[in-house]
């Protein structure tokens, strides 16, 4: 009784085969990531120090640290998210909670999806035309941040929409039938139950904004600029700044005889800060989720 049939045996083989196949695919994804980070760390170790982070590049960027590009990247990311996060989140709330399905919302949603797929160099050109030239901002942190904001906006709208849709419709119905306005429903029920997803989506855009080179290259980032070391307010947003991504590009390809560890150190600082921010997003998400159960 209960002995395995031919079909059963075949099914077991396929089952085991598929399990191994998926495991291999997962490993293929993880192994390069570990290798990259490991290799970067190994190469960067000689230059990594507290000082490396807090001194400006020296000797035509052949030595010294990362202070100016590091602070520049923080400026760009923070200013761009200050613009794109509120606009993106509120636009998504409108599209999801207020707007009826009609030609306007359909076109908007189509635009959002398509904008998310536009290559960053195209955003860069738009930024040059719209912010640097037309709006007269010149090449500045502001112009570069706005360009990054345009780039991150559609993704923030999409991720916020996702988070809002995850709130069950029955909660909204309960509120409406008690006479709640849409805003009361949003403020008391929808936002508290989707905030973790919304914030995660926004924070993930930090890594994109920090990593992109093209959109800031012509709109506000410079190859070299020395700023006061240790002063968090060393940049003025109407002026240009250095940025980690562009700096990495410059010292790896444009400047001869750079101390060997510096490009790797720059890459590690870039990847490290992005991972740190993403880790913070995960912690925040876990914390907010403990308060949400249905």
């Amino acid at each position, binding site marked *: 009784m209960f002995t395995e049939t031919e079909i059963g045996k075949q099914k077991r083989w396929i089952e085991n085969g598929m399990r191994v196949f998926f495991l291999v695919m997962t490993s293929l994804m993880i192994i390069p990531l570990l290798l990259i980070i490991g290799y970067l760390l190994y190469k960067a170790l000689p230059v990594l120090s507290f000082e490396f982070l807090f001194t400006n590049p020296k000797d035509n960027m052949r030595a010294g640290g990362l202070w100016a590009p590091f602070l520049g990247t923080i400026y760009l990311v923070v200013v761009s998210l200050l613009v794109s996060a509120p606009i993106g989140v509120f636009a998504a709330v409108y599209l999801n909670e207020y707007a009826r399905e009609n030609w306007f919302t359909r076109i908007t949603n189509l635009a959002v999806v398509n904008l998310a797929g536009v290559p960053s160099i195209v955003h860069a050109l738009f930024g040059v035309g719209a912010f640097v030239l037309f709006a007269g901002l010149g090449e500045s942190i502001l112009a570069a941040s706005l360009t990054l904001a345009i780039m991150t906006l559609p993704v923030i709208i999409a991720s916020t929409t996702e988070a809002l849709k995850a709130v069950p419709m029955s*909660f909204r119905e309960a509120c409406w039938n*008690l006479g709640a306005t849409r805003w009361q429903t949003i403020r008391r029920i929808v936002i508290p139950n989707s905030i973790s997803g919304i914030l995660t989506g926004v924070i993930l855009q930090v890594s994109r904004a920090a990593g992109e080179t093209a959109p800031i290259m012509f709109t506000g980032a410079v190859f070299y600029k020395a700023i006061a070391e240790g002063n968090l307010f060393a940049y003025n947003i109407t002026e240009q700044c250095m940025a980690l991504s562009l700096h990495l590009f410059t010292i790896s390809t444009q400047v001869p005889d750079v101390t060997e560890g510096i490009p790797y150190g720059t890459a590690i600082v870039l990847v490290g800060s992005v991972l740190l921010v993403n880790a913070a997003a995960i912690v925040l998400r876990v914390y907010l989720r403990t308060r949400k159960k249905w």
Partner: protein
Amino acid sequence: MNYSIETENLSLWYGDFQALIDVNSKIPDGQITSLIGPSGCGKTTLLRCFNRVNERYGNVTTKGKIEVLGKNIYDADVSLPELRKAVGMVFQRPNPLPISVYENVLFGLRIHSPIRSMTRTESDQIVEEALTSVFLWEDLKDNLKMRATSLQLEQQQKLCIARLLPLKPKIILMDEPCSALDAKGTGAVEELMEILAGTYTFLIVTHNMAQARRVSKECIFMFLGELIEHRETQALFETPEHSKTADYVQMRYG
């Protein structure tokens, strides 16, 4: 006899699809009226007309007249929040909000009053009264801080009824309120309705014909968007006038 709800030639379209066809109905005050008919015949749609919540579901067109408590609810001076205060709704799946039991009961009042206008003593009393009316107070008085979504289904459904009471509604619409509950839960909710009828007018959609017979005084049979027959429950079940009603109540289809 007085009527809580009256409709005249009420028709409703979802886009091009006509879900209600010339419905004329009169729902008497202070008793339980049930609404039966096969799935998709417009029962829930009709229910949702009475607090105008249909309008939140997109492309809906309504024609005809609906009077609730003698007032045409499509008059320009009708405030939807006020209408929905007077006409409460209970759903098929219990849908307590993902906040505490205490806050669920107070939710309705909070959204209709200025911020911080209730003292702690007042709100405590309101919660106790509402939960007592639905026989939940003894079970939950020590767990008022508990998340309402983690209660048992029967308790959740009673809480959804309790949540309406602080708003002092006149009419309670119920959309298959027992279909997610077991026999004991169903019994408890039916008993509760019978006790509360008189104070409130109940209109209940049900697929359970035994339930319609048990709880309601009058019964409406709907079929494909039309109101076919509306009579005393016993008469409707025992001597249906219309052949479609007869087919349905004798379970020949649906």
